[in-house]
């Protein structure tokens, strides 16, 4: 049953708190790209995707690949929120610790409900394309969603996959670029600019939409538009804010791969209450 925007916003707040707590407890991890992707993952997992957490390997399910695997905390929190048994809510605090299922980057050996083990950037879109082709061959309703980082798409393989997905008319495939403008070393425009992003995807033959990646209504509308688009894959260029939701971390490249301090944690949680 569809959730209201207010409900989704409530989930997003809980997920953001999980992310801050997980990463500060672990004392390492990537808060920025996790916090920027919250609304998109909440919309996909809690409202949009055809999934059954009690039956995670259901043949006709939709699949999500976190190609920017370093944003694992947001995925773990959302999966826990949805009640996947192999991603238990009460264990989120063990992120990155020895013996935890919540590995530094998503690892299917520990969480079989994940659709892919990721972390080596640039590879997820090819995997998603293969899954989309498989689903099409079998005549399944499944759709495949791949989240890419804006820094990640500097990788050449992404554009190999983009070209072949359009050529193969993989309309079950949706790429979502988390365009938060920041990568580890600084602003994407200063490291190796990827603009004009939407124009590039269009030129590669993708149905391309630009959206506010924190606006649930906009995300929902774009996903419906993607589902109605036949004959070509869809790319959502999602304009987002790095570290969204924590004012003193927002748009600061320091927090791409650095956890907030314990003092900052308290401040951040206060803001997210």
């Amino acid at each position, binding site marked *: 049953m569809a959730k209201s925007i207010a409900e989704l916003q409530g989930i997003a707040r809980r997920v953001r708190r999980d992310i801050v707590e997980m990463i500060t407890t672990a004392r390492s991890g990537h808060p920025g790209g996790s916090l920027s992707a919250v609304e998109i993952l909440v919309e996909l997992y809690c409202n949009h995707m055809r999934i059954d957490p009690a039956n995670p390997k259901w043949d006709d399910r939709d699949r999500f690949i976190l190609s920017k695997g370093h944003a694992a905390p947001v995925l773990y929190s959302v999966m826990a929120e949805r009640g996947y048994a192999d991603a238990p809510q009460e264990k989120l605090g063990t992120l990155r610790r020895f013996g935890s299922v919540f590995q530094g980057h998503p690892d*299917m050996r520990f969480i079989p409900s994940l659709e892919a083990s990721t972390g080596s950037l640039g*590879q997820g879109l090819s995997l998603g394309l293969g899954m989309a*082709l*498989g689903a099409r061959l079998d005549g399944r309703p499944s759709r495949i969603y791949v989240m890419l980082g804006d820094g990640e798409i500097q990788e050449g393989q992404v554009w190999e996959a983009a070209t072949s997905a359009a050529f193969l008319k993989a309309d079950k495939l949706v790429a979502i670029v988390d365009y938060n403008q920041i990568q580890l070393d600084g602003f994407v425009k200063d490291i190796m600019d990827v603009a004009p992003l939407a124009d590039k995807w269009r030129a590669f033959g993708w149905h391309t939409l630009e959206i506010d990646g924190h606006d649930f209504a906009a995300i929902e509308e774009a996903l419906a538009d993607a589902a109605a688009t036949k004959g070509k894959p869809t790319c959502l260029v999602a304009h987002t804010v790095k570290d969204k939701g924590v004012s003193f971390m927002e748009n600061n490249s320091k927090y791409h791969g650095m956890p907030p301090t314990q003092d900052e944690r308290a401040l951040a949680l206060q803001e997210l209450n």
Partner: protein
Amino acid sequence: MPVKTRFEPRLGAATREAFGRALVELGRENKDIVVIDADISKSTMTTYFAKEFPDRFFSCGITESNMIGVGAGLAMAGKIPFVSSFSAFAVDIFPVNNGFEQMRVCAAYGRSNLKVVGTHSGISIGEDGPSQMSVEEIALACSLTGFVVMAPADETATKALVRAAAEYDGPVFLRTGRPKAPVVYAPGQRFEIGKSIEVAAGSDVTIIANGLLVAQSMLAADALEDEGISVRVIDMHTVKPLDREAIARAAADTGAIVVAEEHLIDGGLGVRVAQVVVETNPCVMEFVGIHDRYAESGQPDELLEKYHLLSTDIADAARKALARKR
């Protein structure tokens, strides 16, 4: 003592050709077999499959990295994907056209049921020269956790091992070559992943080989028999997992082993066999392979001679091993 039949080399189909034909047979039996190629289907021989099953053939253009990922994705969607390219482009660490990192993350670490078939392996591709010659891929593929790595000797072996790869649940790399390959096996010979085949019995020295060098080893064995030397020849078609038992037994029985491969001696079949020998029954060993250099353009026969991969080189290595053994 039984009289041994001499090996009379007769050229059969190239192993890449056998691979292409085997795919069609498999495709008829199992609709889950799918094939992905990177603009060289007329060379890798997946074109036969493409013609018969256009819906199950995906052309990825010249994107080897992407192709490996797409194949892994198809495997995750329940298909049995065969991706193929020249070994040099599918596996090796080429600056642009490489699939190794994708094989590591998507196929090995991701445990997908992906079958990677490298064609045009070794220096016997001939005229195209070193940029197209893969002499490293066995070492690279063996470094991938959980991969099965195979190098069949002839047409019959290739057909059987392609079938075995399809039936095996897990990632496989299979190495094939460009030139017509001498016939080693009678049709109907049985093959099993990880189980080597003793193609000649003998007790003084053992030659362990795979791929194109199995036939050369059999010729070497005949030459040595003429000198009164009894030679065992083992086709180690599976490099990983190795047939440890056959290696340990050969070391114990013959006390001298020569390993012959159309690959760099670094990290290939030779060093892997040596590891088993030192762990079980240490004995003298000699290695026939390519020694830390790139080859050049030429006829396959000219190249095999210059780079010391012929039966005469293998026989010399066996004599050397025997001299050290005594």
